[in-house]
């Protein structure tokens, strides 16, 4: 099959396997040798080569460069995904994480041969403690959800140590929560209990009171919540939960809205994960890797995963693996280290003052979009919001039958990635905008004007909106067929 030019510079690329032809290779290894098979039973050897493409380096590079051009990314345009925090990823961070001193280092080298990495981790833990108010931080969780698992495991351990493990199993989760929250609860052997957000979009002590008993393990709260609203009763709720013998987990996915303004530990939060790939500018990589360090109070610190990094009196660093009450390892080495380097670089470049300014500008941008759009799309809850704002298609749908999904797809035609749609679940047709601090005023205004134009178009030419996108390389994808027919890998055509 030959490659056909689809439109202008956008090349339709077949699966790489279809570009293959026998005898080509893109590697430059030392000359091949026959296998030294002494002591290798024949039954253990591979019969027949795996189906991999045979291509030169030129062809492989061209294939993937062409594929890349089908992606929207933060460096081509605004990516206002609510709760995802798609901010610019500074270049210097990448350069620092690529230093050979880090990338060529075996993780099992002796401590004295890892001093640079250990110091980096120790200092990064310190910076995260400072910005959050926590006593200790572990850097090992690979992502936000892995951080949730880890933080909840600390709580579970504390409850076990108190001898209440069999009884305290309930974890309260507001109905605005991300799906990872209840899933992480179950992975810790706890039971999620959904509680209802109040009419003003925040959690009220009344919602928690009925659950204040000796079965309560914890409450898990995102703050600000997924409506972008600060949970102003969290401090009081934390006191209630603590009074009943439970713990408070804060999902730090939206920490970028309060960084430098509020320290979660001051609110009575016992443990929280940070999303370094959201708040601290590390790239999302098309889905990962992220990093989800976890901070906790002095009470929970003895349970943190091993290894821990310790600074000795002489100023050197060493790893501690023998801790009597640790929950154990959650990562085989040190977490997504290359991501940690990026976040560390970002925090150092900003300093405490810079991080506060980042927060201020993120909140300014979200409120600017809100102010400009609030007469065009209904705001889900009419109270103050911080770093993001959730609109609803309630009125638009009633008037024009055009939905959030249609507006989202039409935005693609104008070079904007749509906001997060249909989340949080409690908002009908949610349209959740988080511009982040790295968008300029002009870009924000362009986005707003585009949304306004689409809403107007929904009135005048709804068909144009509901059949969008029109200008993307591919049209709407058939997700139903994908799920029914399940083609999950390439297979050669039958001769």
């Amino acid at each position: 099959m030959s490659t056909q030019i689809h439109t202008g510079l956008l090349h339709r690329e077949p699966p790489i396997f279809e570009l293959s032809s026998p005898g080509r290779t893109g590697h430059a290894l030392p000359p091949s040798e026959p296998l030294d098979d002494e002591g290798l039973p024949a039954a253990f050897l591979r019969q027949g080569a795996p189906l991999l493409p045979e291509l030169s380096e030129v062809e492989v590079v061209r294939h993937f460069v062409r594929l890349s051009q089908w992606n929207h990314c933060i460096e081509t345009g605004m990516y206002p995904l609510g709760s995802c925090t798609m901010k610019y990823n500074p270049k210097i961070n990448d350069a620092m994480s690529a230093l050979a001193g880090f990338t060529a280092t075996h993780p099992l080298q002796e401590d004295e041969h890892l001093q640079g990495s250990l110091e980096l981790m120790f200092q990064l833990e310190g910076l995260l403690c400072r910005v959050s108010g926590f006593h200790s931080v572990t850097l090992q969780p690979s992502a936000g959800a892995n951080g949730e698992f880890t933080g909840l495991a600390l709580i579970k351990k504390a409850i076990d140590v108190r001898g209440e493990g069999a009884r305290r199993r309930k974890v309260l989760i507001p109905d605005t929560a991300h799906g990872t929250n209840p899933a992480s609860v179950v992975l810790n052997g706890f039971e999620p209990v959904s509680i209802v957000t109040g009419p003003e979009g925040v959690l009220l002590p009344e919602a928690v009171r009925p659950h204040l008993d000796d079965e309560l393990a914890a409450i898990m709260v995102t703050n600000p919540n997924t409506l972008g609203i600060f949970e102003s009763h969290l401090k009081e709720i934390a006191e209630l939960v603590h009074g009943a013998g439970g713990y408070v987990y804060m999902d730090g996915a939206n920490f970028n809205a309060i960084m430098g303004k509020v320290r979660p530990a001051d609110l009575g939060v016992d443990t929280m994960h940070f999303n370094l790939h959201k708040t601290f500018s590390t790239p999302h990589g098309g889905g990962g890797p992220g990093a989800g360090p976890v901070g906790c109070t002095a009470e929970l610190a003895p349970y943190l995963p091993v290894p821990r990094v310790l600074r000795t009196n002489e100023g050197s660093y060493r790893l501690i693996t023998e801790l009597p009450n640790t929950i154990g390892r959650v990562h085989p080495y040190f977490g997504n280290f290359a991501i940690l380097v990026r976040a560390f670089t970002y925090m150092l470049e900003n300093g405490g003052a810079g991080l506060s300014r980042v927060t201020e500008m993120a909140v300014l941008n979200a409120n600017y979009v809100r102010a400009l759009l609030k007469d065009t799309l209904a705001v889900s809850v009419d109270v103050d919001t911080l770093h993001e704002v959730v609109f609803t298609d309630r009125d638009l749908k009633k008037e024009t039958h055009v939905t959030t999904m249609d507006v989202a797809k039409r935005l693609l035609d104008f070079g904007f990635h749509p906001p997060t749609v249909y989340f949080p679940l409690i908002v009908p047709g949610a349209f959740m905008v988080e511009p982040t601090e790295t968008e300029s005023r002009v870009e924000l205004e362009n986005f707003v004007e585009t949304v306004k134009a689409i809403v107007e178009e929904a009135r005048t030419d709804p068909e144009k909106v509901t059949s969008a996108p029109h200008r993307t390389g591919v049209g709407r994808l058939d997700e139903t067929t994908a799920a029914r027919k399940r083609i999950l890998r390439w297979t050669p055509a039958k001769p």
Partner: protein
Amino acid sequence: MRYLPHSPQDIQHMLQTIGVPDVEHLFRSIPRDQRTERPDDSPGLPECQLRRYLEGLAARNKNFCVSLASAGAPFHAVPKAVETIVGRSEFQTAYTPYQPEVSQGTLQAVFEFQTIVSELMGLDVSNASLYDGASAVGEALLLALRVHKGKRPVVWVSEGLHPHAKEVVRTMLHAFGDVTIQWLPLDPGTGATVLPGAVTADVAAVAVGYPNFLGVIEDIAAVSAAARSAGALSIVSVPDPANLGVLASPGALGADIAVGEGMGLAGTAGMGGPGLGLMAVRDEYVKQMPGRIVGQTVESRGGVGYVLTLATREQHIRREKATSNICSNQALVALAFTVHLSLLGPSGLRDLATLSRNRAMALRRGLLGIPGVRPLVTGPVMNEFALVFPRDAAGLRAHLADNGIFFGVPLARFCPERPEWREAILLAATETACPDDIAHTILLVKDFYREGK
């Protein structure tokens, strides 16, 4: 600040539009008494100072000229082209491909990744990646428990998994609760996993390493057959899939689930990560798989396209009933893996695995020729092996370190109380070691013992 685009005039205009006098007003929903009392106003560092500090830190790690260790973090020679592709903004700074019309690049690359992983593993379906090889074992065990709907509360796990992977598995299963791990010992002679009799009817899965932590190639066919005869799933953990260029695929040997650590081939093994958790399963278990999966479909203009599919397994839809809590995965590392394997092709992968094996065997043979050096165990190995040295293994390693050689990992580090591991070192070689490096290393070891240092 260079990443904040607004001029003071922009900010004034925006505040006026919003209708607040200053930025502080935007935070009025936060009660005063919950605000940080003394905000951190420490200044940041300019780029030149950042560089100096971080380059200084990096320089304080020792970089060896020659590495003869794997121990779960194998170093392969990854072509520059991989880094170039992975560094492209379009891949690196994109989000999860939830809007497929503007994410076909990532989606198609993941589809190709899934194909490559299922080919290497010899199984039907792969997911889009998990965090690392260790948590992938934990996820595989949880998958097996789900398949048996909680009616089989025991898992058999080999003592021969990487010690850190065992700890991760223990953490995960202990947290999940209601499951017993029976650890399967290694035969002290061969180093292979010993099944303590027939697999019993309460066992959901049997998990072994391939090769195991001591480098021994387990008899996957026998273990899988034993598991299958009792209705349990066979889980095979591959610490370095490069070896599958030579070794039979887990699927061909009867595994139901294969997991692995792909960071070696992706080129991200430095400091142990980002890792790349691989998982492939037989088709019948696809609905129980954790993590994202990409599928091929059609688009409204008639072309072929790709989407995230079978999402009802996942936390954002199924919440507490999801197959896992995983959301972010290791997509960019998976892309690096895909590009590298595409460059290698079948012959390149075989050459790479062969060279790794041959270098390792040359090293092993040379070292075993030194009086007093003996193998820790006798089972068949691929490119990693454990040797017992006559005395002062720590001194030997330090001597080699002074000569720029990272001479394996001392087993005593993982289990100080085992006397037979006291002078044992776990060594490995990959295609990155030249024959000269091997010869030089052997010479240095010879000298060390001859001179009685």
